[in-house]
């Protein structure tokens, strides 16, 4: 039953994340909205990482979580600096709002789990999250960015998302694989 609940939650989480790739060319975000989406995505993963650092006792999970907090904080700082330099003020968009509301559900789920169930759900979520963000940055955010420096920064961030995805998958395989994907 618990396993079924976890699978259902992962499913709903994936639906929440589908907001990002669902952005079509017609709804292409402007630069201010792109900044808002990137900052929201970074903050969400920082918050998940902080929860994991509080709750997990698993060394690999804790190391990964610490990395997410450190790296996404660095990206966030860099995005804020770039936006300031370009005179772009972050704007709320349906995508950033969708990300935040999806994250509220995941946060509630993370707070309700403990032990190995928590570790598994956290890492499975990180795999899905980074996969979705990587795809969305490639398919939507980079092609939509108008400012060349913003576009270059997004392109420069791609290896980071990919490495985080590889790292998450490596921790996941150490746990015995994904729960449901």
């Amino acid at each position, binding site marked *: 039953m618990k396993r079924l609940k976890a699978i259902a939650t992962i499913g709903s989480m994936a639906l929440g994340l589908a907001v990002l790739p669902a952005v079509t060319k017609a709804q292409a975000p402007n630069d201010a909205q792109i900044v808002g989406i990137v900052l929201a995505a970074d903050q969400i993963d920082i918050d998940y990482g902080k929860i994991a650092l509080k709750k997990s006792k698993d060394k690999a999970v804790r190391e990964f979580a610490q*990395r997410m907090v450190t790296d996404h904080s660095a990206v966030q700082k860099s995005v804020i600096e770039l936006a300031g330099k370009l005179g772009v003020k972050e704007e709320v968009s349906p995508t950033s709002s969708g990300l935040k509301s999806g994250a509220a559900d995941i946060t509630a789920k993370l707070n309700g789990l403990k032990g190995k169930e928590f570790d598994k759900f956290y890492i499975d979520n990180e795999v899905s999250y980074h996969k979705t963000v990587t795809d969305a940055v490639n398919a939507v955010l980079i092609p939509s960015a108008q400012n060349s420096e913003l576009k270059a920064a997004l392109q420069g961030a791609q*290896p980071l998302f990919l490495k985080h995805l590889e790292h998450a998958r490596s921790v996941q395989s150490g746990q015995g694989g994904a729960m449901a994907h």
Partner: protein
Amino acid sequence: MKRRVAILLVSFSILPALVVRCQPASADENAQRRIHHVAIKGFKFDPEKLEVEAGDTVVWTNEDIVPHIVVADKFKSRSLDQGESWSLKTKQKGNFSYICKFHPTMKAELIVN
């Protein structure tokens, strides 16, 4: 006579160049030859495979916005923020695989001959 003078002139003009070429490399040249640079950029070590002579120095510089750390069985850097470097004077010969422990899928190799 003109031919002898010409040969003499040519010899004198070539000789200094040869002397310069035969001189050992200056201290600066030696120092340059013995320092190798590895850039950490785009979540990769560049070059990913580096071959040096024992006694050479290798300098890693982080160009990414996130911290990295160079870790092998035999050596370990401190955490390197963007723009920071860490150097290693090689002593022991061998092949040393290393990673960024923060991002364990970043892998490279240092070969000390």
